[in-house]
């Protein structure tokens, strides 16, 4: 699928893109964080936003989430213009954003609680997702009793439990250790395959982006723009264990580094 194709699809009544951003600009006073940025996010795929710090990738993600308002341009989710946060999107935070005074199960069911789901029902759903992310038995633990990796699993379970079509992940694995991160990345591949959801994934790690993504949008700063969209094709079916030594994987990592290196101080 190339860009011209996606553009024609947008006109249809049922868009193929789960999310599309149109000519998004965001200014903070004099500072231009994003300029005229348009991107399509195909349904059911994982799309990474990758770029050096200051390229506006988190800003873009928060605009899609409805947490920030663009200065101009618009975001559409399933063909509907975004005016704020909505039940069609769920956010996974870099620093986990757990309620430290609440147990794991209350944290996971928080999104459902805000939607007015009855207590017994939301705890049933939460318990299921707690098991799914591998935290069974920790339902009544408190965040300070968990490791960083486990805390992010709670954040992930919370985002999954509201069953949103689009999952927005803001550098979700950057605050956990290397080994946990690898496990997370493998689990994420399974999640993309099993859950029929669209993932938008912000990261600053080239390897991580190439490893987990169906598409990688490379953003460059000053002014922020989409430099290139890369679609790895060959190694996705070879299984989680073989990706990291696949020649295409290694080539793409090198290619991205070549285009980013001049922007890294």
């Amino acid at each position: 699928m190339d860009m011209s194709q996606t553009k024609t699809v947008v006109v249809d009544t049922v868009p193929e893109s789960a999310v599309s951003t149109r000519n998004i600009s965001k200014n903070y006073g004099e500072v231009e964080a994003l300029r005229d940025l348009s991107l399509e996010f195909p349904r059911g795929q994982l799309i990474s936003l990758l770029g050096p710090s200051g390229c506006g990738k988190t800003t873009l993600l928060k605009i899609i989430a409805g947490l920030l308002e663009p200065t101009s341009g618009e975001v559409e989710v399933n063909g509907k213009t975004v005016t704020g946060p909505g039940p069609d999107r769920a956010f996974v935070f870099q620093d986990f954003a757990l309620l430290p005074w609440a147990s794991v199960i209350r944290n996971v069911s928080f999104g459902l609680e805000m939607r007015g789901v009855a207590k017994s029902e939301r705890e049933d759903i939460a318990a299921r997702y707690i098991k799914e992310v591998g935290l069974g038995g920790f339902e009544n633990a408190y965040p300070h009793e968990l490791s960083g990796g486990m805390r992010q699993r709670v954040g992930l379970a919370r985002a999954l439990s509201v069953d949103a079509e689009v999952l927005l992940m803001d550098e979700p694995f950057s605050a956990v250790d290397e080994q946990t991160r690898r496990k997370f990345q493998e689990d994420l591949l399974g999640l993309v395959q099993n859950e029929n959801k669209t993932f938008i994934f912000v990261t600053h790690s080239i390897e991580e982006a190439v490893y987990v993504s169906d598409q990688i949008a490379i953003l460059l700063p000053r002014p922020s723009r989409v430099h290139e969209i890369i679609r790895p094709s060959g190694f996705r079916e070879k299984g989680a264990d073989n990706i990291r030594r696949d020649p295409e994987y290694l080539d793409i990592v090198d290619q991205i580094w070549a285009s980013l290196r001049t922007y890294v101080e």
Partner: protein
Amino acid sequence: MTLFGYRLPGMSSLIIWGLLWEIVGQAGLTFFIPPLSEVVGTLIEVIQTAAFQKALYETAYAFIAGVFFAIVIGIPTGILMGKNRLLDELLLPWVNVFLSAPLTALVPVLMVLFGFGMKAIIITTTLFAIWIIILNSRAGVKQINRSLVEMAHSFGASPVDAFFKIYFWAALPEILGGVRIGIIRAVKGVIIGQLLISIVGFGALFELYSANFLMGHFWAVLIVLFALAFTISEFLAYLERRVSYYAAKR
């Protein structure tokens, strides 16, 4: 602390000060300090009198009402100030002025405005306690982790939900600290109110005993008052420790 290998229980130092008090009292250095044993005897006697029980009731009533208003007005005001820039700009200078102002000097004004009764005493108590509660609640909200607020927003929390389920809990350690200090100040407020506005409650007893040089009675009532204030303060400190596990990680 340990002494000669024995672990001393908390507040063992009070025994030394109690002994010193007894010695000074027995030596008869000044009528102002009767021996501690005499004070304790008086205390047991005084507690059983109707006058004391009436004073305790009057003081407790004014104190509890004053603290109640300080808390139910102070905490929401402080949280809203922390959330809302405009409200903060408007109110913060006044909160700071009243926090450091000599409130005792305001009591005559309160008497003119609210009369010489219980109402003026309650308002005095509230005025002593409320400012630090507002300021601490505000500080608690100010340090809240931005991503918790974003999280609540992104999962569709209404402003009311955010207030009760995020802001209040996130600020709770600071709020409890503020309430604890506020209550200590309220003890001051209620006694000053009772001395200056209308001579009732413990204020009346202090007035009566000191005017008649009944120092044993005077100290006995003072000890009761200290003990009450200390107990309440320790209870709140205990509540604060209950939430301290997350105070460092918000």
